């Protein structure tokens, strides 16, 4: 009788305990992220920026991501333009294809594509690198040398991230637009001049402002979340893999949530 009762309690208790642990872990992680972000901004405003390292990180984060962003943006542009062209042609609105494609690219697809690609490529790499540094006591060595790990490791990566992400996003948008022009001409017989004219009439300055805001937020999420996971993981080789996965999952989830919030706040239906 006792064992049945205990078993029943375990069945109920385990999921509750597990949920509690997950929630506690999530709040702890968010708290750590906020602390690291506070110190990152503090060091930046104090002018404690290692420009040489920032330049190096800009190359790692930005330049090395161009190829993968190009491919993704190109094919996203192809697919999206094809869908939009097909639907608008049915309604006889061929001349609006450029506007709709460019709106989607500048408001959503550009920042999201670049964000997701950088989260996968850079976020995972940062988490793996910093976790390895934790495990091999390199971070402890920095602390003994009285070098703040946030100043030395996070600030250059963050600076590089917020510099390179808007460039990557706008580049992703441009590549997507080129793909859109090609598909619109081939699939809907819309001339590039007509396409671009529609783009010009549709896109507002505010769209670019929101585009850059989203890029900045994406860079912040990817770099700070990944650095935080790297700087708080201990253990062995297995934990490097776990940290990498966590960094990508947290970054991508954060990007999609933040993207919706920014969209909701900036493009409220009139």
């Amino acid at each position: 009788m006792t064992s049945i009762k205990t078993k029943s309690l375990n069945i109920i208790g385990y999921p509750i305990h597990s949920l509690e642990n997950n929630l506690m872990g999530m709040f702890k992680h968010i708290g750590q992220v906020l602390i690291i972000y506070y110190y990152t901004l503090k060091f930046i405003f104090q002018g404690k920026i290692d420009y040489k390292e920032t330049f190096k990180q800009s190359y790692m984060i930005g330049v090395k991501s161009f190829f993968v962003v190009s491919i993704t943006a190109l094919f996203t542009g192809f697919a999206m333009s094809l869908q939009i062209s097909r639907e608008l042609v049915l309604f006889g609105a061929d001349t609006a294809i450029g506007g709709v494609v460019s709106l989607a690219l500048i408001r959503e697809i550009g920042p999201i594509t670049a964000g997701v690609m950088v989260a996968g490529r850079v976020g995972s790499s940062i988490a793996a690198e910093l976790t390895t540094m934790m495990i091999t006591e390199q971070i402890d060595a920095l602390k003994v040398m009285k070098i703040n790990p946030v100043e030395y490791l996070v600030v250059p990566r963050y600076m590089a991230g917020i510099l390179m992400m808007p460039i990557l996003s706008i580049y992703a948008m441009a590549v997507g637009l080129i793909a859109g022009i090609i598909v619109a001409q081939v699939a809907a017989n819309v001339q590039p001049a007509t396409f671009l004219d529609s783009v010009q009439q549709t896109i507002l300055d505010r769209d670019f402002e929101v585009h850059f805001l989203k890029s900045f937020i994406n860079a912040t999420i990817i770099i700070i979340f990944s650095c935080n996971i790297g700087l708080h993981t201990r253990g062995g080789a297995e934990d490097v893999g776990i940290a990498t996965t966590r960094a990508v999952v947290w970054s991508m989830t954060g990007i999609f949530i933040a993207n919706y919030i920014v969209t909701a706040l900036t493009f409220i239906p009139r």
Partner: protein
Amino acid sequence: MNEVNKNNLMLEVKNLKKSFGNREILKGISFSIKAGETVGIIGPSGCGKSTILKLLCNLIEPDGGEIIKYSNDISLVFQGSALLNSLTVKENLALALRNKHLSQREESEIIAEKLKLVGLSNFANSYPAQLSGGQQKRTSFARAIVIDPKIIFYDEPTTGLDPILSTIIEDYIITLSDQLRAAAIVVTHQLSTWTRTTDRLILLHAGEIKWQGKPQEALETNDPYMRQFALSSRDGPILVG
């Protein structure tokens, strides 16, 4: 950091306590070290030797007690070298000098001098991955001494090294002790290391200091803990497992 230096002391530890979860690692230990003195901390695995070094370097917070350091110039030679893989040997040493705000020329001169001392002048531009285990250890030494520390800690400096390299590392510890007149703590298991390099020994077991004395006395004492440890015997009060 207290600047008053009474009785030539460099480091004082009073009633230091540390637990990890329910496991009490240090149960209130106290000791002090004078300038130029090298103290060896020995004991079975898991007795809290490395924890003491982490506490002394502010890498972890104590649960209780007090640590008084009479100098800010502190270095630690890590067991696994802990060199920054993305930096060259020279850059690793320069990192330790970062807060000294020296001119490029002064920095280069100090680095060259320390690399010469550990016999790595030809490896200044090599990355840690290009060095052997012994060379990495020596680089770690050079990085630790580049600031001319007043307090220096060695975490298992000869563990995993061949006997010849162990002797070379022990010689470095002795040379540095003479040259820098620094207070030093050597955490080690190796008999040759504690007999050759230390002036005083502290035996830790179950979070407490079980024996203190000179290395020569350690080999002759009738204290059951020290005797068992010095003779590497299975029989005695120290239970491992």
